[in-house]
């Protein structure tokens, strides 16, 4: 963070979320979530939504993010 004028200020949460979504269980959920998105996008008239898959994926990322994030904040 030292030369934040020059480099664009990076939000630590973005990096941690990225790392968390690559953990084994979160990656699996991400995979399911993307698959659902593609499936729903491909169909023209469907009432299915991918909220549940997203919720599971975000739940996984949150529980990986929560303990670490505040260490990087003041």
């Amino acid at each position, binding site marked *: *963070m030292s030369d*934040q004028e020059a480099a*664009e*200020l*990076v*939000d*630590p*949460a973005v990096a941690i979320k990225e790392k968390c979504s690559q953990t084994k269980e979160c990656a699996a959920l991400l995979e399911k*979530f993307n698959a*659902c*998105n*593609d*499936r*729903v*996008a491909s169909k023209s008239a*469907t*009432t*299915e*939504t*991918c*909220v*549940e*898959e*997203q*919720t599971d994926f*975000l*739940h996984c990322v*949150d*529980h990986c*993010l*929560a*303990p670490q*994030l*505040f260490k*990087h*904040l*003041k």
Partner: protein
Amino acid sequence: MAGVAGKFVKSGLLRVQSNGIIQQSHLSTLRELSVGKKAGLVVVGSLIGGAAGLAYTLDQSVKASGLDLHAPHFPWSHNGMFSSLDHASIRRGYEVYKQVCSACHSMKYLAYRNLIDVSHTEEEAKEEAASIQVTDGPNEEGLMFQRPGKLSDRFPSPYPNEEAARNANNGALPPDLTYITAARHGGEDYLFSLLTGYTDPPGGITLRDGLYYNPYFPGGAIGMAQALYNELIEYSDGTPATASQMAKDVATFLKWAAEPEHDDRKKMALKALMLFSFLISVSYYWKRHKWSVLKTRKIVYKPKSE
């Protein structure tokens, strides 16, 4: 004292076996109750149990209403039983509120004088107050007039009334934030996650314009656009103003606004815990002392053998 207490405790727990014919009197009260009373007790017990169970399931159903994503528990510095709020964070949170949130959200139950000795000195609080214009009571001519704010004035509301607020936010009313952490499940965790949780909607979800997608908001469609971006404001104490930092600070500030007694409450908890544990042990010693006579009484019954 510990020795004496230990002796009493040891003796109390130790069933002194004595070879005399000690008549054991059953102390249970159930024996004398008539059958009717026992049945009554059973009924009352089951009723209470049932009611408690019902209340629990209702509460659970409110929480787990299907697909809501609950905010995780963040390790706030004020989470401990005796941990106070981080006042530097409260001060930064006030700056975030003033420069970002106050455009739409009011905090009408907070006055400038509340900031004194919490996040600002008296001078700074006066400056903050003087920076706003307040309409004051009728003057001699009976007209309302504008004057700079004073310590006793409350935070200004962006809209004169609810209708104006709804009209400016296509029907959505930005809630008053003074007690928001007490008013939402999850409190500051929910606020932090909400402010940093904006993502694009998942497949199959389309929102009418004027609504935005936020997985932590019950139902997913929230009237507030993402408000916090990196370097949106400049902190006076030089902290790098990332979105997460601003969300954390404003959540701490709103936690203080909802619970200004938080620090005193935890200090009192520290005192109470220490004092009552001492009083409990003294009471226990006193009880044991007073009961020692009865508890060590031995009655010998020797029937006259014919």
